[in-house]
């Protein structure tokens, strides 16, 4: 809760800095503020005991509304790190709307607050509010490049789809409440385990799940994803692909694992959805000609992998979700850091634009290569260990799904390598790209992250218990 308040104040301060018209103050303020909040969250996360989820019904959970337990702290920390890295890219990323930079930062921070509310929510009302606080600034951010018709289109699509999803979510919540007489997580948990579950509750749960799948982008509810990701300004896409996705997955995981995680009847449809998501994401990604759209489909596929952890609820499953999302976030931000540079200086994101990057910009090419290899799951990078951990835990549940996931990982190598080949084996067609100091710092940090998570997974896992 303290972190949330601090973050809100930071966002409001960013708005006021906009009033002062002092360009120089803004970025240090945001970075320092985010670092401070991160420290607060980490310090809190270290104090928490081993179990991920609070036992409820105590005063520290704000009348069963919001519980900043270890689960929430870990995911909040992850989102904060992601936002911190993205903010460092913002010098170049927000160039399309130079005059409204403070507002863009403030909206991003507001959205982040929504993400924290989501991961800590233990009540359907809080979940709903979190989703809205996360989404509404994201709709605006998606359309913040008003001169670009693609950005406007993306914002409208995102907004309309999001609004419908919200309607479905609310309908589902109402039905769940009608069925169980409770909206808090522990009430719903007790109801779903100990009594005859009514059809109304099931229908409600179905709708809530559909809405959450929409937000995460699980097939067959993924259609909005690629268009929105492509049209949105790249820096905002990187935010959507990492923070928004992480928050949605974490919140779904908390509710899913605790309310219906024990019920096999729910699993089977989700298992099929997971398999479908992987295939659609990976197969469609192979036929893309643009790097950004390829990343959009690959992010859909990755959401499919994460679903595997949902079917074997346990401490290890929670750890594997955290680890997977951490690896995915770091790699994705690295990809976008390079993409932003390429897009701005080459005016497109075709694979040809990456030609010969290894000769002209070795650091960017090296980082992007490692990030893509990590996404594909090549050892010894973070992605490999994340996948290994996820799959080995999931084997107990649905072995055939793991096989599907492995086949899909193999497919993914194909399209990730297209960029790598373009960078290393094609001759440069254009003059070298120039990356700013902060961009280089981000590249180095993500590089370090990929290696640390890959070579010393124990660091994060020990922290997770």
């Amino acid at each position, binding site marked *: 809760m303290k972190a949330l308040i601090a973050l809100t104040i930071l966002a409001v301060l960013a708005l006021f800095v906009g009033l002062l018209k002092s360009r120089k103050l803004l970025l240090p303020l945001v970075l320092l503020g985010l670092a401070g909040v991160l420290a607060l969250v980490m310090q809190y996360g270290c104090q928490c005991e081993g179990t991920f989820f609070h036992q409820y019904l105590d005063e520290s959970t704000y009348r069963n509304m919001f519980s900043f337990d270890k689960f929430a702290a870990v995911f909040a920390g992850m989102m904060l790190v992601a936002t911190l890295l993205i903010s460092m890219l913002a010098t170049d990323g927000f160039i399309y709307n130079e005059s409204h930079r403070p507002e863009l930062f403030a909206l991003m921070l*507001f959205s982040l*607050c929504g993400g924290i509310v989501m991961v800590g929510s233990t*009540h359907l009302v809080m979940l709903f509010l979190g989703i809205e*606080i996360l989404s509404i600034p994201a709709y605006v951010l998606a359309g913040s490049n008003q001169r670009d018709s693609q950005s406007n289109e993306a914002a409208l699509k995102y907004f309309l789809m999001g609004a419908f999803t919200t309607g479905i979510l609310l309908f589902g919540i109402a039905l769940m409440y009608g*069925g*169980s*007489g409770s909206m808090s997580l522990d009430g719903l948990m007790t*109801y779903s385990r100990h009594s005859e579950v*009514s059809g109304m509750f099931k229908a409600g749960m179905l709708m809530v799940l559909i809405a959450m799948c929409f937000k995460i982008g699980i097939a067959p509810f993924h259609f909005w994803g690629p268009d929105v990701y492509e049209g949105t300004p790249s820096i905002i896409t990187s935010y959507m692909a990492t923070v928004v996705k992480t928050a949605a997955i974490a919140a779904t995981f908390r509710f899913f694992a605790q309310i219906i995680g024990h019920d096999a009847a729910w699993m089977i449809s989700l298992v099929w959805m997971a398999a479908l998501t992987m295939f659609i994401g990976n197969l469609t990604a192979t036929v893309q000609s643009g790097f950004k759209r390829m990343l959009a489909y690959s992010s859909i596929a990755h959401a499919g992998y994460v679903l595997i952890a949902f079917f074997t609820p346990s401490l290890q499953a929670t750890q594997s979700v955290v680890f997977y999302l951490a690896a995915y976030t770091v790699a994705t931000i690295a990809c976008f850091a390079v993409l932003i540079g390429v897009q701005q200086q080459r005016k497109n994101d075709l694979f040809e634009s990456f030609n010969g990057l290894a000769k002209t910009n070795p650091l960017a090419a090296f980082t992007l290569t490692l990030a893509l290899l990590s996404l594909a799951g090549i050892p010894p990078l973070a992605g490999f260990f994340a996948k290994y951990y996820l799959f080995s835990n999931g084997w107990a549940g649905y072995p055939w799904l793991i096989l599907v996931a492995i086949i899909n990982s193999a497919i993914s190598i194909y399209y990730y390598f297209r960029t790598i080949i373009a960078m290393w084996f094609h001759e440069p067609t254009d003059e070298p790209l120039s990356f700013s100091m902060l961009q280089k710092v981000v590249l180095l940090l993500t590089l370090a992250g990929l290696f640390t998570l890959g070579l010393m997974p124990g660091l994060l896992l020990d922290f997770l218990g």
Partner: protein
Amino acid sequence: MIEILFYVLSFVSIVTGLMVVFAKSPIHSVLSLIVTFFAIAGQYILLNAQFLAIVHIIVYAGAIMVLFLFVLMLLNLNKEAEPNKDIAMKLAGVISASLLMVTLTGALHGSVVPEATLAVNTSNGLVKNLGQVLFKDFVVPFEISSLLFLAAMAGAVLLGKKHPSQITDSEIQKI
């Protein structure tokens, strides 16, 4: 008496709800929707939730729908402006809506509604009790929602403000 009112209000809200969907002119849709809101507010009053009823009317009928009408009137949308949807789209819509209906009817048919939901405390909807619930049990969501409004407001201002670079070169030359 209350039961009769309930059925009348339900009938009105369903019929006007259908009119929202089937009306050819967008203005008629909006007006039907307003009537639907009134019928729903009536349901709230039957549940003794007067505060909710009147706030529903003030917010939805009094503010949001007026803005809807505003936009429709200013854009001059009418029957001719309605885009023609092709038959495949309509069919898909009908099928998915029917599927949803089958699912819901199946789920709700004979489902047991627990005591907790049925035991409606008739004084719950009064302002005083509502305030107690809102500012005690639900104080965290209440406060958090201010964040939502702040964010939405900042977003609306950002989208609404004229982009400085939207001023074209010719306009600059004029200056």
